């Protein structure tokens, strides 16, 4: 646990991180599914909500692309299965496509604390089962995201934006012996707000 926190602190204090560029809020739907499969179902069925708050740090900026790091705090609820708090960071590249529109790809890793949705029971010394308090289970989170961003204000690339992203998130170890990796497909809609109004 301490090692995982150290990694997060290390990411936050990465020497290249000099400017905090954007904050964003994502809301979306996550499905346990094989990556890239049943994509359309994310839109119309089985809503397992996910909420995320994040911050982007530019590491290197060129005219048409930006190398960046993110830090995210999130929560998701999967009815009858689990809910989880997520803290993770992503490293990615954002490429301008046309004026006001850009696409990005991000690779992430972090920590997830998962709480089982149904009750957990345990046998006591008398042989009877009783409810056991659930303090959650530590899990590792890995992610790969593809997204597009669109400026809300015409001709202002550094203003507020809306975003749509598709994320493959893997939780491990869900069950050590027979479900070591639990994949989720996530569709997120987001609002991005710039913290520094450099080019207005």
């Amino acid at each position: 646990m301490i090692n995982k926190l150290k990694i997060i602190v290390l990411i936050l204090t990465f020497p290249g991180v000099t400017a905090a560029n954007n904050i964003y809020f994502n809301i979306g739907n996550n499905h346990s599914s094989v990556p890239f499969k049943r994509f359309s179902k994310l839109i119309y069925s089985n809503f397992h909500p996910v909420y995320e708050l994040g911050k982007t740090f530019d590491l290197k900026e060129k005219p048409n692309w930006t190398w960046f790091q993110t830090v995210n705090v999130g929560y998701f609820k999967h009815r009858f299965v689990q809910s989880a708090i997520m803290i993770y960071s992503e490293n990615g590249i954002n490429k301008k496509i046309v004026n006001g529109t850009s696409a990005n790809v991000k690779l992430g890793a972090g920590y997830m604390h998962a709480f089982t949705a149904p009750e957990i029971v345990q046998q006591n010394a008398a042989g009877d089962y009783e409810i056991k308090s659930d303090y959650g289970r530590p899990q590792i989170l890995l992610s790969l995201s593809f997204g597009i961003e669109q400026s809300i204000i015409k001709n202002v690339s550094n203003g507020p934006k809306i975003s749509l992203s598709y994320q493959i998130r893997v939780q491990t170890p869900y069950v050590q012996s027979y479900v070591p990796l639990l994949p989720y497909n996530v569709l997120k809609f987001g609002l991005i707000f710039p913290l520094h109004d450099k080019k207005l």
Partner: protein
Amino acid sequence: MIKNYKMIRILTLILFAILFNSCKKPIIKDTNNCSTNYNDTSSLHPQNSQLKDLLNKYKQLGLPGISVYIANTKGSWIGSTGSADIANGVNYKPCHVQKVASLTKMFIGALLFKLIEDSTNTGLGYLSLSQPINKWIPEKFLKGIANADKITLAQCLNHSSGLYDVIKDNEFYLEVLNDPTKKWGPDDLLKFVKNKQAVFDPGAQYSYSNTNTLMVSLVIDFATGKPHHLWLREKILNPLNLNNTFYQHHENLPSNTAQGYFDLYQNKKPVNVSNYVTGSGSGYTGLYSNVYDLHKFLHAFLVDKTVVSTKSLQAIQTTGATDISDLNLGLGIMRRFQNRGADFGWGHTGRDLGYSADLFYFPARNASVTWCINYGSDAESFLKPKILAFQKELIDIVLQ
């Protein structure tokens, strides 16, 4: 710009509204107590204390709730122990209903033969057993299923079809997790079987596959033009007065349905998995019942032989050898415990997420064993060996 902000606000509100209204309700709610007017003479059974001790032993060993109905030459004995609902402190009683998993297959097998006997109304006959399933099941269900034009109805009943087992598919389990209370339709399940290699050529071997009974239920649906769940109620459950038996998703479950548990995380801390549905209502699982009704069915089917004709029962009990030494598969039935020599049993085992059950008749001893445990499945867990040990010890006592 203002227009864009307005649009975002509206979109955000719609998203929040959808997401907060997305929660599904549980199928199995808190378990209520139940009672029965059954005239229980278990205390007079000469093996009463032995059977009570057995139940207490396995409660101590960790089985959450157990109910048992045995009948042998010494009389009948009914008993239970443990919890039907641990969170609410409800004791497991023989009247509690639970998922009986693959025992559903035995009911569906019996149903098919009832329909064969009623050939003038159903269009099915004994010859149907040797005909390929694509005679009745439409192409849209069978497209991409290996050997669908060769597999016969009998091969589905005795698991010699070579059909890929839907419940062994990883994607299927991801879907169960994604939508635990899903009402599975046959096409939802068959998509996990399509484009999968056959396990073997039809008729070449015997290998248990849940997909087989799914196909049998589809044959009933399409051959007769009436859903198999309605036939089940009409031909089996109602005539036998099985008033404590319900077919999940086609029928509502009663308030005395026991919770089901499984050591999901393999840490000896079972999780309540009652609301994880693994394809109920599609022939291979989904029947909920209690030991009274199960015993009643077994007795009528294999002891009194009043459910199907002698000709049908002979066909049902025609078995082929499997690679498991103590198991041969008949048409919707198992011949088990053959390592006991003449003391083998006819019946079925049932193992599903959260629940286990057994239903066997031992003809050489005129004895029967029916039990339900609200823990499963057959996957490896710390309680699986205990369920197997319980099964063995109980049969040992009953056949003494």
